[in-house]
């Protein structure tokens, strides 16, 4: 039997087990909350997991490319990129899928695990993109918050700009308080 011929019930079983393991990574209180509430707006993390994980399993069993599989997980990875996970924890949930495929015939498992590995690498690419995005939005915000007028005001009336900023020389100073952004 090819992976693509995996019965739907088995695919659902794999996804269900994977979901349970991923939820467990959040600790018991959060796992309960993320699992219990079905409303997508009252529980965005749980909803993302419930929709993305089965879609990724389907894509994987259908022999889709690792990038396609990872794209199914994009919402989850975007979330995990800002949760309190280390990079390995944030993407480690993809590898956990390998431990959820016991219902597959033994002959198919190696192929399945190989695809999971590839998907995990593609997922890490997405994770890196989202982390990069976090840096970008931080810089974008600093640009927005310092004005269009701060720069024009400074250009007109140096050294007294009329705005009291923190000293750049200070160690722990928020970017947005430094006044050194364009």
């Amino acid at each position, binding site marked *: 039997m090819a992976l693509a011929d995996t019965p739907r019930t088995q695919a659902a079983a794999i996804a269900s087990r994977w979901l349970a393991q991923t939820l467990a990574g959040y600790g018991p209180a959060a796992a309960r909350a993320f699992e219990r509430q079905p409303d997508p707006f*009252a529980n965005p993390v749980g909803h993302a997991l419930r929709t993305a994980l089965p879609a990724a399993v389907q894509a994987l069993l259908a022999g889709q490319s690792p990038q396609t599989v990872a794209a199914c997980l994009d919402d989850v990875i975007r979330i995990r990129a800002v949760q309190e996970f280390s990079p390995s924890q944030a993407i480690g949930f993809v590898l*956990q899928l390998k431990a959820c495929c016991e219902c597959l015939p033994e002959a198919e498992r190696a192929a399945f695990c190989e695809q999971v590995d590839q998907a995990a690498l593609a997922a890490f690419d997405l994770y890196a993109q989202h982390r990069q995005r976090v840096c970008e939005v931080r810089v974008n915000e600093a640009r927005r*918050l310092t*004005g269009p007028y701060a720069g024009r005001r400074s250009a007109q009336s140096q050294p007294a700009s009329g705005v009291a900023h*923190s000293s750049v020389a200070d160690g*722990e100073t928020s970017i947005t308080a430094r006044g050194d952004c364009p």
Partner: protein
Amino acid sequence: MPTPDQPEYYPQHDLLKPPAGPPQSDWMDTPVDFRPGSYIYPGKAKNLKILDLPHARDWSVTDADWQLPADWQRTVLEGMADRLGKYRSFQIFMDCCVRCGACSDKCHFFLGGGDPKNMPVLRAELLRSVYRKNFTALGKVLGRIAGARELTVDVIKEWFSYFYQCTECRRCSVFCPFGIDTAEVTMMGRELLGLLGIYVNWVIEPVANCFRYGNHLGIQPHGLRDTFDFMIDDIEQATGIRVDPPLNKKGAEILFVTPSGDFVADPGTYTCMGYMLLFHELGLDYTFSTYASDGGNFGLFTSHEMTKRLNAKIYAEARRLGVKWILGGECGHMWRIVHQYMDTMNGPADFLEVPRSPVTGTVFENARSTKMVHIMEFLADLIHEGRLKLDPARNDHLRVTFHDSCNPARGMGLLEEPRYVIRNVCHHFFEMPANTIREQTFCCGGGAGLGTDENMEMRLRGGLPRGNAVRYVQQRHGVNRLAAICAVDRATLPTVCDYWAPGVQVTGVTELVANALVLRGEKPRSTDLRGEPLQTPTAGESAHEGPAHD
């Protein structure tokens, strides 16, 4: 024996152990873990000194030694006793929680991150456990069995972490069957930390600025004048109208107070231009003030004394300038203070008159006490009375949704007025899902002094529920503009959207009004205030006589 190219070679079950997630230990045994991106820099000594606050020192959150003052435990416990005696609500909130869990999954920080200490019930328990140990017989005798614990340095660190992961948005309070206001528990926690000289710099520096200059950003009078001049030029470029916003005009009928973020930061600057255009068109006898140059009041995130100190300038300036009443701009926590605290802190403002719109004659009975009217109430009245000539088609390039800012929505019940205004100035308005708006609105994740950048991951986690709802209307209705009547929202929601719903920009409601406003003597309009092209350029309006659009 499997070889290395075979999966069986690798000890799968060891490799596939779930990655180390959150600690599984009891919350009382789990010390706080300060990771970059998840905490805010502490208040600098120079800012505490400006405000004469005790125990000013420079320190870092990741230091093992936070240089707590000698006898710090007694300071905190005496501070707690003082507040329990002074605020009956605090005493009740400490006693009456039955841990039903109704609030547990209502906080945006818990929903975005899953840290159980961000469940409102547990966040309050951080303080309650110390209260039990020191102020209840059961806690003193039974200790941990009764949910009590000692006040230790780790507890102080935990308070700092989690009371600065609460935006005091009060969403959890909506669901509490006992009406416990967890925001006020956070406020008490922050006040107690303040007794030890522990603040976050993103709050205490704006407070120090506001104390000296009248606004959080430290804009001095000449800086504000310069800023207005730039805005006047930009308004003229977009509309052909040259406005002349008065500053510190004695004897004006109305003092206009708005958050200083709107003077400096995009997109708030467009909202400020909107105020100027609107008042110019109405011929309003009003004035801005360089002293009361911030409606916002980060004192609210510091202590009740500081709230009062900073708020006092509004009434003082109203008295100095001799105005009749005060009009307030699109701000968030300013309105919670005005609505709930100002009148008893610095009022009653007997020297002012009950606000009456000089354009429509409407008397704002709801502001009889504070003498301060919200710009949305003022605008809704103008529109209802037909005193504005509006062309909503000028906003046809925008597909708008509305974010109820926490404080105006939950702090003062301002739900209908902004929607009424938006519906009159836009053709394309779409609500987000019902459980994410109005009283149940989700916070931007950056309120109450959290809107800085070093805690960006934390803010983005907290912004997930809001961003998720925005993305829904973006995908379903093509929404490209998120309207909000709060300066913190206008500063932080663009970032939330950038990450969770890229392509959606943020706007103030008055900016939308100014776009739609048909002005006397305006030039043909081809762009909105941002310089973005209109879907259908207008022919312009010839100058007309008399009051606006009678």
